[in-house]
């Protein structure tokens, strides 16, 4: 047993060091970028810190952005356990938000709690079915799930734009086509004592449930076998197709819930603001967290902070709005590169541990 302990430590240490290392490299690269844009990188980082985590107001700003990221990250992380690379979180958010808004509009007299519950269910079903299409294409027709889920995003956005400019259009939303408002009474409230809506709680709870599902249940165990080696899963007689469909559905439901929260907590109606790149940023969060649902929580907060600092960067350093997207992109590339480093330091660690 005395040997097993450092092994476990090493197992946790390697991803930690690699991720901290890649974040550092990303910061250096981004620093060079802002310096070339004429700003002092150290001041920029100071500003970013202030804007993201400096005050309780900025914390709230960060957390509001982190909440949907936690949910959309699950869209990529959960199928990742089955070895699938699904990038359809954006589509799940859009479909979830759209259908949540539509069902809310069909029940004008119901009490808010019923409306919200139905909205959440509708959003989750819509998002779940949406990603399940990608899973089904993969399993039954061997269509690459990455491509199909990406393309499904565009179809979802097109469907949203079509419906909010036609059937479900609120005539008063003149230059910004939207559905009717779901009604102030049906808006989800804030966590008492804060300005934060309940979405954050949903996000954290969803991540914890997802982690528990994958690591402590029979379903998660079977999924990890199928994701690790499909031939081994066949020998064990596991229903690989059903696992793929189920996990895509659960993943899509998380995205759909994010969409429902955007509608019920922020916008009050479904329109093209649903398509705010939370789905794509979620892919980044899942990658950085190496698909571990618990690691998604802090990573989502970090990325939420980066996105929250965008406004202040613009004002304080006259950097364009897209600057934070550059940082996001740099992190993404560096993290992708760092995937190649796993296992390279094994020797070093073994010597260090002995």
């Amino acid at each position: 047993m005395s040997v097993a302990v450092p092994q476990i430590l090493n197992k946790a240490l390697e991803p930690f060091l690699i991720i901290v290392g890649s974040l550092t490299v990303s910061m250096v690269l981004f620093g060079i970028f802002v310096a070339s844009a004429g700003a002092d990188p150290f001041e920029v980082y100071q500003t970013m810190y202030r804007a993201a985590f400096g005050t309780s107001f900025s914390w709230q700003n960060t957390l509001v952005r982190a909440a949907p990221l936690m949910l959309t990250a699950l869209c990529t992380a959960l199928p990742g356990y089955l070895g699938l690379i699904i990038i359809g979180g954006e589509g799940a958010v859009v479909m979830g938000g759209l259908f949540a808004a539509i069902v809310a509009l069909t029940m004008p007299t119901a009490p808010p709690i019923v409306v919200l519950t139905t909205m959440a269910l509708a959003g989750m079903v819509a998002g779940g079915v949406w990603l399940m299409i990608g899973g089904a294409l993969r399993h039954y027709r061997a269509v690459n799930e990455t491509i199909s889920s990406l393309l499904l995003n565009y179809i979802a956005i097109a469907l949203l734009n079509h419906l909010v400019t036609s059937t479900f259009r609120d005539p008063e939303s003149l230059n910004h086509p939207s559905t009717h408002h779901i009604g102030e009474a049906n808006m989800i409230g804030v966590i008492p004592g804060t300005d934060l809506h309940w979405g954050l709680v949903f996000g954290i709870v969803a991540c914890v449930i997802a982690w528990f599902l994958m690591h402590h249940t029979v379903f998660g165990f079977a999924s990890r076998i199928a994701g690790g080696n499909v031939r081994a899963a066949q020998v064990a007689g596991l229903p690989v197709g059903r696992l793929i469909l189920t996990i895509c559905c659960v993943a899509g439901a998380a995205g759909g819930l994010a969409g429902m929260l955007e509608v019920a907590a922020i916008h009050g109606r479904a329109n093209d603001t649903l398509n705010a790149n939370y789905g794509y940023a979620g892919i980044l969060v899942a990658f950085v967290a190496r698909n571990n649902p618990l690691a998604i929580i802090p990573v989502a907060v970090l990325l939420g902070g980066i996105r929250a600092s965008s406004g202040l960067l613009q004002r304080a350093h006259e950097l364009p709005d897209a600057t934070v997207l550059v940082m996001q992109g740099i992190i993404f590339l560096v993290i992708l590169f760092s995937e190649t480093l796993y296992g390279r330091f094994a020797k070093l660690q073994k010597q260090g541990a002995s």
Partner: protein
Amino acid sequence: MTDGAPPDLQALGITKRFGPLVALKDVNFHLRSGQFHALLGENGAGKSTLVKCIMGYYHPDEGKIVLDQQAVTIHSPRDAQTFGIGMVYQQFTLIPNMTVLENLVISKAKLDPVINWQQEEHQLTQFMDTMPFKVSLSARVSSLAAGEKQKVEILKQLALRNRILILDEPTSVLTPQEADEVLGHLRAMTLAQQVSVLIITHKLREVAAFADEVTVLRKGQFVGSGNVSELNVSQMAEMMVGSEVTARPKQRTVLSKKVPKLVLQDIRVKDDIGVEVVRGLHLTIHEGEIVGVAGVSGNGQRELVEILSGQRQTTSGTIHVQDQPFQPTREQIMRHKIFCLPEEPLQNTCVGRMTVAENLAFRNFDREPHAVGGWLISHPALRRSAFELIERYNIKPPYPDTPIQSLSGGNIQRAVLARELSAEVEILIIANPCFGLDFLAMEEIRLQIVAARNRGTAVLLVSEDLDEIMELSDRTVVMFNGQLVYETTSSGADLAIIGRHMTGHTT
């Protein structure tokens, strides 16, 4: 070929550590000019490490490599080539969709920016003429049989003007006939003083038939070396495993009544590219019986195993298990207790990055006590069961939390056997169970298979090793061209007749 005798290679006092693990300790080894030398040892004895130190993959912590009485430092395999040392690996390194000519040309250390194919072909044709065996230069590698590919691998090393050839288990992918042919050619070339050969092997028969000298390693240490002519097979086996191998008799109990357990009727299966490779196969296996399927690989045996293990669909035909139609779903597998030990267990039935404990639970993670209430995995229960199996089946290292891919081949095989035999088994499907295993592990695994049979399990054993089939099975069938073409009881088996059917000569 180049002139003069091949160089004399010595490894003196080689020690190699990996962290706390001492893989090689003060090992001496001498490959004389023009010698056919065999390196024997169990899995994990350090054979590969020693060879990798010679090839420059690893740098020994202590000791030196001496080439023609001069100490040399070999930094990399490319460096080894400049000293005339080349290696043939266990797996093929040829590019399948290129021709033999293209494969030989691209292996050169330095390629001209523009390749003059005519000139290369001319040179290699001349080179081929000096070789004792030939392979068509224009043949596409993917169309060659395993034996031919192995020849190309060897020709590749010779074309690079290497004078010392190191071969890592060169015959593990070959049929016995192919193996004898390839080794015979190598033998002839050493006799002609064209090359020196060092082979790593488990097969004592090959050592006895072809090698001049043998060096034995055990647990990273030099045990001894000697001329093959002065040693017999049991002495070599003893040096390898450390004690006289007790040829434990495989006790067989004979069951009074013959109850059919597995019945295959008119099975037809297609391979990955849609060619029908099993063509109307009929087979019945009874309780307490081992049926060995002999045959040259590629006659549909792999696909036969895959349909029973659930990795492939039949195109037609029926499978009945205990008089009921069988589909390899988890529910039916568990109900009929039909378990499977396919070849290459790490690739076929394990998840490399999951732990040993998790891999051991693939059959029963969804039942008590591993699954509390049928849905909640109890990790402590998984570890407890794993400890028990690790001890019972002597799996090393004995840590349930290590990823299974870090175990050696023999230990992975043991782990899979432990998993498949841990519960009551009615039907056991086995393919090449001892592929690449050392003597001791092989013996253990065969004993376990016979023990299962004696408990009443029906066993289907598909193997490319005819000796293994003869040793284990009650009944032997020969598979050729997707059908069973011959059947005999093992007691009345005539190897010559079996051999004829394996190769399709049935006059």
